[in-house]
């Protein structure tokens, strides 16, 4: 049996797996908090049966925690749903900020583990591109992952958008003097270069400014 490795597809699957694993971790955390809050309510009920007076404020606090975590889980699942639907069509018109905001949301845990703060800033007017939504998500992650690695603990990475000539651009900015320089592996890696090529995009790294720019062709922008 023989097969041909499609580097873009393989890298995409790896990216999809990484994101879904992170989402499952987040949901596990939510379930753990609900588990402890429900457990504490149970503990307090058992103590009340033994004669300890029930403190309504304590019950209210735990009920509030459970409701807050349900809201949080709802937000996580909405992100997961948007992400899952990014593979529905191989080409469509997408709002670039919507995509950048989604990838920032999906990357929140990765940023937190590295001690990096993320912010996505909406453009003054909507910028849309016609592209493969999943490949675009992957390309945005590739850039963000690199900038977070280059920035490290205590830094803030801002995702901003603009248009220049025939390009719609996403800026991943950590700021001047922030990049550590000399990444261990070339950026973008070979498989990532194939992804960028598939999108007809370009990546520009400005070490001095602490910025990566992902430029996407806007010539076929959706109306």
């Amino acid at each position, binding site marked *: 049996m023989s097969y041909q490795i499609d580097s873009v597809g393989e890298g995409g699957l790896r990216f999809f797996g990484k994101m879904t*694993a992170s989402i*499952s*971790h*987040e949901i*596990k*955390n939510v*379930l*753990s*908090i*609900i*588990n*402890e*809050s429900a*457990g*504490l309510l149970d*503990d307090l009920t058992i*103590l009340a049966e033994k004669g300890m007076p029930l403190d309504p404020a304590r019950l209210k606090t*735990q009920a509030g*925690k459970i409701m*807050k*975590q349900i809201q949080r889980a709802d937000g996580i699942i909405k992100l997961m749903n948007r992400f899952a639907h990014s593979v529905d069509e191989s080409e469509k018109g997408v709002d670039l900020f919507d995509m950048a905001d989604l990838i920032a949301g999906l990357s929140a845990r990765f940023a*937190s*583990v*590295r*001690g990096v703060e993320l912010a996505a800033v909406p453009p003054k007017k909507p910028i849309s591109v016609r592209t493969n939504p999943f490949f675009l998500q992957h390309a945005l992650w590739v850039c963000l992952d690199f900038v977070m690695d280059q920035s490290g*603990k205590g830094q803030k990475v801002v995702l901003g958008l603009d248009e220049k000539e025939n390009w719609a651009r996403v800026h991943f900015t950590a700021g001047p003097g922030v990049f550590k320089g000399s990444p261990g592996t070339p950026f973008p890696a070979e498989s990532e270069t194939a992804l960028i090529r598939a999108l007809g995009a370009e990546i520009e790294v400005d070490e001095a400014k602490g910025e990566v720019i992902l430029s996407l062709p806007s010539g076929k922008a959706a109306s």
Partner: protein
Amino acid sequence: MRVLLVDDEEELVTTLAERLNLRGIDVDWATSGEGAMQLAKSNPYDIAVLDVKIPKISGIRLKNELVKIRPGMKFIFVTGHGSEDDFRAGTAEAGAGYYLAKPVNIDILIQKMGAALRDKEEE
């Protein structure tokens, strides 16, 4: 038994601490590696319960730092991932008996703490 809980999810760690307190266990908690190390410097904990993935510092690295501060301290690792890699990392550091997946069953956690304390006392 004095226990230090470390997890970046504050609502998780505070509620678990409250439940352990109700069971007569003396617990402090921290949501960061730095906070955990500060507490360990001034408190002789017997056991630390660590999330495998703590922001800015992994649970494994934090364990190594806490051992320098409190050489006799025992560790229980907890993870939300439950992946093979996490399992290998957790069990390699703490032993298979001292590794739990979230959500944690409090009775099992207390059993593990008791076993870890017995190990500590036998050393």
